[in-house]
């Protein structure tokens, strides 16, 4: 499948990647090259083949529904880009707010 410029712009938008106008055409060529190489998979008859989602055939384990972690609010908030806001500044692990720059418009 060969991708055109508009398709590349659409994928870039879906992927939330800014691609400058002048890069769309070269990128379309590159991605088309990769996809053309991938097309060889069509040689393989996969009718009635169950897709393999995971190589580990174990079923996801269950555990007892109990608290196993916590009380580390200071660590949780340490990387907050807007800084940490603590409910009780004298007890930082009592909880607080992870603040980020405004994302609602």
């Amino acid at each position, binding site marked *: 499948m060969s991708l055109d410029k508009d398709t590349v712009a659409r994928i870039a938008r879906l992927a939330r*990647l800014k691609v400058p106008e002048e890069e769309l055409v070269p*990128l379309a060529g590159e991605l088309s090259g*990769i996809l053309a190489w991938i097309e060889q998979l069509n040689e*393989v008859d996969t009718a009635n083949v169950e897709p393999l989602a995971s*190589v580990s055939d174990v079923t996801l384990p269950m555990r007892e529904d109990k608290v196993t972690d916590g009380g580390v609010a200071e660590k949780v908030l340490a990387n907050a880009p807007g800084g940490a806001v603590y409910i009780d500044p004298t007890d930082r692990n009592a909880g607080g707010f992870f603040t*980020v720059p405004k994302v609602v418009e």
Partner: protein
Amino acid sequence: MAALTDLTLAELVQALAKKEASAVEVADAHLRKLDEHRALNAFITETPDKARDMAAASDTRRATGEAGLLEGVPLAIKDLFCTEGVQTTAASNILKGFVPQYESTVTTNLWKAGAVMVGKTNLDEFAMGSSNMTSHFGGVENPWKRRGDNRKLVPGGSSGGSAAAVAAFMVPGSTGTDTGGSIRQPAAFCGIVGLKPTYGRCSRWGVVAFSSSLDQPGPFARTVEDSAILLQAMSGHDPKDSTSAPLPVPDFAAAARNPDIRDLRVGIPKEYRVDGTSPEIVALWEQGIEMLKAAGAATVEVSLPHTKYALPAYYIVAPAECSSNLARYDGVRYGLRVPGKDLTEMYENTRAAGFGKEVRRRVMIGTYVLSAGYYDAYYKKAQQIRALIARDFRQAFEKCDVLLTPTAPTAAFAAGEKMDDPVTMYLNDMFTIPASMAGLPGISVPAGLDKDGLPLGLQLIGRAFDEETMLKAAAALEKAAAFAGRAAGY
């Protein structure tokens, strides 16, 4: 006694146990090597203070009679493992300056065993690459050079810094991660041992995710035994990773110390004889077959008919999973943020500035193959091919116990070569990706030098969760090949 930095990991453990050197002395000797070879750019972050503190704590433990499996052993950690209080970048601009508040399970296991961290190693950005050239922090130089040619060579990738650090004797061992060959291929390029365990053997918790159904941590070392010791310390069930296998950890080191392969059946997959492989590598593979035969193993030709489709199928599965995993880097909660006129433009600007070219390319491919209307044609098709690849291996393992193949189609190449076309670069992983797609363990063992004096590796692939048989065969191959090569000047 030989210089502390020349000892193998097993020898170093012995020297420390006999108190021939303290952990602090061992750490200092290796830190001097980091200073000496900084030009290789193997490390993104060096942690000398942390190393000395950890070494001093190790000496204290030993004085009180407590000694773990890796007590006092200095290690380098791929900068994809989260390390508490130490910057973790995944070699990406988008995570520059990110300091995790928690420690990955694999590194926690290593520190519990007494190991000492000297630093975080360079890699391809988000582990996407086969040359280490996609790192935001610059490429890594392979300690090896072609004879009579001063051009810098790549160490392979993505775990290029971890491989170069071991090959340059800066550390006796290091950690890597392998999604499609990112441990085995750099091990081959740098003349050392690299082991990708069975998917599920080592916990992925705290490892920056690239392709979650394929990613698997594993060790680099200079001997098979050393890689087995490291694997033993890294492995184990982890309730925090739902794909971590609830299995006991075998005595891997014991398997590596017992290279008796007289009852072993070694499979030679005929589909690995492909065009584009260097004739010297084909010849080395033949020698490897003869070596294992001479050690008493039986060899049998096997067929893995879907081998050629593993690579294109991988380039659907891995980008698809990467585009999902990397969606979290949005400029809001951590890492880089580039302003825009509205929220969407902020996301787009941040991700365009934060991700390098190869990562953007893979995110785009992944987004495309998962986009509405294309799922069945690409992702589902790739997963069906994956099922066929896994079935090929299952059938082959009815006739043999382990497979022997080359690790990579060529020796290390120069920085800048193979860069013009992404598919050319992808072909580097043609021999390592099939086992990744099936979740099987693989190990690259240095087995010889090419005409230019560069190391070449052979790969052994084992059954799922049978690293022990693979290690025995690897030890036998190592013994027979007697690779004693060392990069000049290191």
